[in-house]
């Protein structure tokens, strides 16, 4: 069974790698066409200035989407290569940015508003990208399950004094919800799974009552 799961994970990595590669080719061609049209427009005479401006705006929008797609393809590659070398240098900020799209299911159903807050400079560390994203996403889901409808959640990345990196998930209205004595068995089970996942990647998770906060601490050297 475990062998089958490993084979499936390896196959999924290959598929992801292939999709990311093809996506980059698609985006590369779209980018060349867009910038070629911009070259042509720049060289065109000034007749129809309004139309020229509209075209330039449209092309700028397409370029923005191409850049967005390229970033997504790059992130897909990050995960597909996790199978080749489980531990790699990664920017924690990039992983945290992926939490927003991952939060969409409960953002929609609960009306939860997400605020990401991370330093401008890259937070480079060594780790297993897929497992780190799993633990971060698991923590976000866990905290979201305790929030009230239309609550807010702030996700903040910061360096710890001396060593390590910390990600905090804060929702101001859940101080009652994070008390363990009020949890249903399913919440205990989810929490135990998160603790065990965290321990596997040299991370720790903890809860703080006021304000309602879930902390993930990665015991890693900064790079």
């Amino acid at each position, binding site marked *: 069974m475990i062998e089958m799961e490993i084979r499936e994970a390896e196959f999924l990595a290959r598929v992801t790698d292939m999709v990311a590669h093809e996506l980059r080719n698609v985006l*590369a061609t779209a980018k060349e066409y867009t910038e070629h049209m911009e070259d042509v427009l720049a060289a065109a005479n000034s007749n129809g200035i309004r139309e020229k401006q509209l075209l330039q705006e449209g092309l700028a929008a397409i370029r923005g989407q191409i850049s967005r797609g390229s970033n997504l393809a790059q992130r897909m590659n990050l995960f597909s290569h996790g199978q080749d070398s489980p531990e790699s240098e990664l920017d924690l900020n990039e992983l945290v940015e992926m939490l927003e799209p991952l939060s969409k299911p409960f953002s929609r159903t609960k009306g939860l508003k997400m605020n990401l807050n991370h330093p401008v400079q890259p937070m480079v560390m060594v780790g297993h990208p897929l497992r780190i994203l799993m633990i971060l996403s698991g923590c976000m889901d866990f905290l979201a399950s305790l929030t009230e409808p239309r609550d807010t959640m702030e996700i903040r990345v910061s360096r710890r004094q001396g060593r390590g990196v910390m990600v905090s998930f804060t929702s101001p209205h859940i101080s009652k919800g994070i008390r363990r004595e009020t949890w249903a068995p399913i919440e205990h089970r989810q929490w135990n799974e998160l603790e065990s996942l965290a321990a596997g990647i040299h991370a720790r998770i903890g809860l703080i009552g006021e304000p309602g906060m879930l902390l993930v601490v990665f015991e890693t050297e900064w790079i």
Partner: protein
Amino acid sequence: MAQVKVLLVDDENDFVTTLARRLSRRNFDVRTATNGHLALQMIQEDVPDVVVADLHMPEIDGTEIVGRLRFLYPDVQVVLLTGEPWGEKVKEALQLGALGCLEKPLNISELTDLIRSAAASDPA
């Protein structure tokens, strides 16, 4: 000043055609090939200053083009393009003598700067 002769090699026809037009506008003398076999044939007929080739292509890929040119036409510089600039193939191609490897989607200024520096440099 003589135009720099560039041969673009990529199996993505739309990509290579559009990139050729953009380079022509920037005063390069550009020809295109959509596979490694055709590229080697075209190089034999008219040796370019610089070859810009995709790293991942069926049959003859960018790494093999670098290897063959180092042996057959050591004066021709090769710039590679790839969607995976961190891969093992990139290291291999650079060790074989490729001048550089640029990430797709491209930044045209980076490419033109690299082509000009490739045309001005001596690989030997």
